């Protein structure tokens, strides 16, 4: 008997881990992107758990869209990283502060 709560707690743990990852790996933009992927995974798990337990397919539809968006995001994100590296010869986040006010 696996309760809904178990899935949600697993999602929460995964989410917390990815947040910690963002905080810890603040300099490495690639790891940052991977943490974001992890975060999305946690959210997706929650969605699917809810969809299953509430017997509502809408949750799965959401996950479907999230996957789509995440794929697009990753593609663009990585392309930007490549571009940044090409222009500035680094992907150190600390060096990318031109937008500061």
């Amino acid at each position, binding site marked *: *008997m*696996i309760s809904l709560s178990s899935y949600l707690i697993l999602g929460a743990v995964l989410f*917390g881990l990815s947040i910690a*990852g963002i905080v810890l790996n603040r300099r*490495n933009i690639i790891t940052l992107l991977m943490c974001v992927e992890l975060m999305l995974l946690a959210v997706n798990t929650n969605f699917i758990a809810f969809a299953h337990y509430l017997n509502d397919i809408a949750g799965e539809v959401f996950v479907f*869209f999230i996957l789509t968006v995440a794929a697009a995001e990753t593609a663009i994100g*990585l*392309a930007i990283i490549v571009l940044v590296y*090409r222009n*500035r010869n680094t992907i150190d986040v600390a060096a990318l502060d031109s937008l500061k006010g």
Partner: protein
Amino acid sequence: MTINMILEQIVFYAAAVTIVFAGIMVIGSRNPVRGALFLVLAFVASAILWILLEAEFLALALIFVYVGAVMTLFLFVVMMLDINLEPMKTRFVRYLPLGLLVMALVLVLVIFAVAPQHFGTAKYAVPQHASASYSNVKELGSVLYTTYMYPFELASVLLLVAIIAAISLALPSSRKRRLQRPGEQVQVKREDRLRMVKMQAEKKILPSRKWLKKR
């Protein structure tokens, strides 16, 4: 409790532990390549869980799309860029307490919210297993192409845009590569661009009387 249930529980916990372990490794690994590989592990374990939740289509999509495409992209990029990783890791230890604190806060808050008294089996009974004729793909598809028609179309357009954007961004330009330094560029002053040179316009050019006399 049937054997199936026990089996399910074993699968769930095994997968859960795998995911958490993989997650820790993703954020902790110094090498992005290894991190990406652990992420793949986390995805695969998640896919197992999703199958447990009868979302077969999405589980498979996760494997195909993420493990097959996205993570490959990651690995390509990581390997393509020659990144000096050492300075990036120096601050890892310094931020560890903060990271743990934030993680703890999130965990406490979320687990408090999703605690078994709210979402336990008592509140949300475990649903019956679907019949053998149930097709997750069919169910999802029937909703996706009717109720969620417009969002679906939108998502496809989004993907198209993303493809074009990614290509156009990463396309190597034919121009000579120029480095941008926006910070310095906005701070440029008139004096940097234009130098006023004081010239004595006439004095030196016209021969002075004295000079003439010498002649």
